[in-house]
């Protein structure tokens, strides 16, 4: 891969990041309401995507246990508690597998 291709890739990536942030006007109230609903579903989807590999293969046992630990503590709505739940789950999963 040449340096020019790398620069093109960097430009594509930066423009994709900047186009909405820089060029989009402040959204209308209706659009803003819809946008405010997006983050939680996206994060839930990203979590799911990281747990499923090619062909729907599940992640390792400790990773699944870590996710279960975080999910269990998610009603507390604290990132720290989710991380603690994940760490405990991972340790338990590693011990059992």
């Amino acid at each position: 891969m040449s340096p020019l291709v790398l620069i093109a890739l960097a430009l594509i990536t930066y423009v994709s990041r900047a186009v909405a942030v820089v060029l989009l006007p402040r959204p209308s109230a209706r659009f803003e309401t819809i946008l405010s609903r997006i983050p939680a579903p996206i994060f839930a989807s990203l979590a799911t995507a990281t747990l499923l590999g090619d062909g729907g293969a599940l992640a390792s046992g400790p990773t699944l246990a870590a996710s279960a630990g975080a999910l269990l503590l998610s009603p507390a709505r604290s990132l720290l508690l989710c991380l603690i739940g994940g760490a405990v789950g991972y340790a338990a999963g590693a011990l059992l597998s």
Partner: protein
Amino acid sequence: MVVRALPAAAAVAVFGSLYGAAARGFLGVPLTLASSLLVYSGALQFALVALLGAGATTLPLLLTAGVLNLRHLVLGAALRSRFESGPLRRALLAFFLADETFGFAIAAGNAAEPRAVGAATERTLLYSGLTLYVAWLVGTVVGLVGGGLAAVEGLAGALFPVLFIGLAALAATRRSHVVRAVAAALLTAAVALLLPDLRMLAPVVAGVVVALPGGDR
């Protein structure tokens, strides 16, 4: 804010080292380092290594970059409504837009007083972005010089779903958000199983699809 991003930074550094070690054989040291400096996108950079390993030419590389980066449009639009600064500052902040930094920024905005949402969101995007950027670069250099962090790859890999679950919990400020989050997770799982080629796009598509209908409760 930097402290809150440290667990994610540690995981990013581990994956940066794996990227540095994997990319070195295809790109050489200068281009591998330049790719992390200029592109700063783990998903895209790992995809590039895989494509180069399969002998891909320039066009597939550029198309892959376009497709993988589509999600930034949605993340950027969701952040735009919270930003209050001018276009130059927003252009600088945009460089640090990634899945994780988006999550930290949204969570900080949700936790802030109504009149401080913009400042909290922008400050968090900048600081968490810088933290993860430095971690990605350090990890890449470690991988390039042959330092292996592969021993903790499993632990680092487990951190991402845990982090995203925590960020989803923080972002779900209403009961309807929780319902939409569960629906999006199920939709993503269905896409991953039935249309595996679209797996990388599924999170953003599912996030948008479930956000459109109905009202908020």
